[in-house]
């Protein structure tokens, strides 16, 4: 394992400290936990809390700030944070308007957030949650835990965050978050694996000519292995699956071409070049495009494509100002 770290044990905390020190006037870390909150607590609005395992930077701490999250709780690498830490985060940002937790659909995340919300309810904090499940690679059925929550989560942060800033009620913020979830779809792939620092070796192996289609953001396997193909062919495979899932025709969309951590922007732009042309041909109108690393898997190489179907409300909230380390509008 070759990584720019100081010790395996210190990875998460030093990462969070470094993030906070990159924006010391805007972010603060809670004592005794890897919990990032806004430097100035904002009253009179619904507070948004998210989080999950570390290793997805800039998610989620990088999206704490005006117009997006109030708090992000970081667990160990690829491991959900524990209920006590999530509860501390909820407590730190809770307002009379309530708290909305944005949870990615992974069993661990859901269980730990549920326990934390039980603890918050016991303290008379008004708290509710939404579960993001945008990954079309995995089957949503009675026979699985449901679709995973991946890069589309960032758009839930953005739009629910904007809604919360308007002073909307907890019910209204939750409703708009669910509207985003209903309209956002993502699919990803990897060309090389990543190494969890504590494990010391890659979570899976891919031969020189192999790729994994439908990969999750923790290096967990996707739908199938394939032979490497051109960027355009791979992007087409992912897009076709997304476009087949809900009807995007003649609709305006936000496109996110998201790097998995070790993919150069050069390649992401090559992907985007195809994505834009292909969507145009398919009759999908691109309202805005985000290209970059938003929801990563440490140093995995690969990318995901996310499409969010917009309506007037979502468009307006998407365009609302945001000032966070990883996303500004």
């Amino acid at each position: 394992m070759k990584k720019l770290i100081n010790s395996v044990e210190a990875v998460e905390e030093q990462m969070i400290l470094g993030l906070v020190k990159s924006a010391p006037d805007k972010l603060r870390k809670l004592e005794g936990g890897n919990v990032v909150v806004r430097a100035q607590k904002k009253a009179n609005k619904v507070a948004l809390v998210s989080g999950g395992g570390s290793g997805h930077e800039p998610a989620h701490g990088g999206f704490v700030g005006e117009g997006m999250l109030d708090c992000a709780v970081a667990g160990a690498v690829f491991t959900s944070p524990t209920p006590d830490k999530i509860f501390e985060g909820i407590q730190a940002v809770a307002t009379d308007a309530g708290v909305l937790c944005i949870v990615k659909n992974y069993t661990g995340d859901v269980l730990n957030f549920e326990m934390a919300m039980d603890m918050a309810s016991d303290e008379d904090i008004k708290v509710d949650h939404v579960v993001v499940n945008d990954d079309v690679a995995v089957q949503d059925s009675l026979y699985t835990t449901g679709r995973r929550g991946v890069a589309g989560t960032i758009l839930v942060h953005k739009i629910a965050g904007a809604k919360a800033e308007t002073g909307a009620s907890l019910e209204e913020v939750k409703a708009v978050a669910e509207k985003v979830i209903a309209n956002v779809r993502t699919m990803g792939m990897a060309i090389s694996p990543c190494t969890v620092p504590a494990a010391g070796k890659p979570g899976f192996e891919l031969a020189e000519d192999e790729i994994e289609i439908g990969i999750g953001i923790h290096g967990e396997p996707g739908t199938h292995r394939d032979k490497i193909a051109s960027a355009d062919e791979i992007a087409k495979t992912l897009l076709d699956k997304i476009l087949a899932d809900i009807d995007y025709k003649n609709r305006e969309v936000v496109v996110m071409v998201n790097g998995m951590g070790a993919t150069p922007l050069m390649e992401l732009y090559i992907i985007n070049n195809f994505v834009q042309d292909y969507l145009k041909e398919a009759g999908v109108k691109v309202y805005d495009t985000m290209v970059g690393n938003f929801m990563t898997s440490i140093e995995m190489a690969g990318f995901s494509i996310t499409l969010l179907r917009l309506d007037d409300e979502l468009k307006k909230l998407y365009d609302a100002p945001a000032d966070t380390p990883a996303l500004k509008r």
Partner: protein
Amino acid sequence: MIDTKKILEIIAAIAKKIEAEKDFLTELDNEIGDGDHGINLARGFKSVEEKLPGLADKDIGAILKGVGMQLVSTVGGASGPLYGTAFMKAGNVCKGKKNLTAEEFAAAFEAAIGGIKMRGKAVEGEKTMLDALCPAYKALKDGIDGGKNFLDALKDGVDAAAEGVEYTKTIIATKGRASYLKERSLGHQDPGATSSLYMLQTTLEVLQRS
């Protein structure tokens, strides 16, 4: 009879066993999950071990509850809330007790399984820790009800758990992260069922020693 001293010994021995099997559990999880089961459980039980001296003069209920809370706050992932809830629920049943009879041990075990089912919204046959724990409980209970001595009944339980782990190789996961693999999860034993088996094996080993 199982007294508080034995319970503390069992917990300490489980911590050692999980640490020893950490890499193997992680290996199993790499195949069908996200490869952190051993790492997470070992981190949790290490912190449990550090807490044990502070629990030494408590009753069995308080010890098990303390173990559960520590697991919940240090393991993370899905196994933290699941094992944490299991120990806390078992603790509830043993409240105020300094000794457990065979029947009381079985009742605590049953409560632990109930906690896992409730928190994980899972049942047997979904390729989870329940596939080791449920048959183990049934064998233990049948043994006790049939008049076997406790250690023999517990041995039946451990054997049933081992069979349960084997059984997880033959079924498709429908809960947890392995569920996404569908038929690709076949042939792999479930890491959670495996760690559950280790806990039961270790319990038996400690009790057999005395």
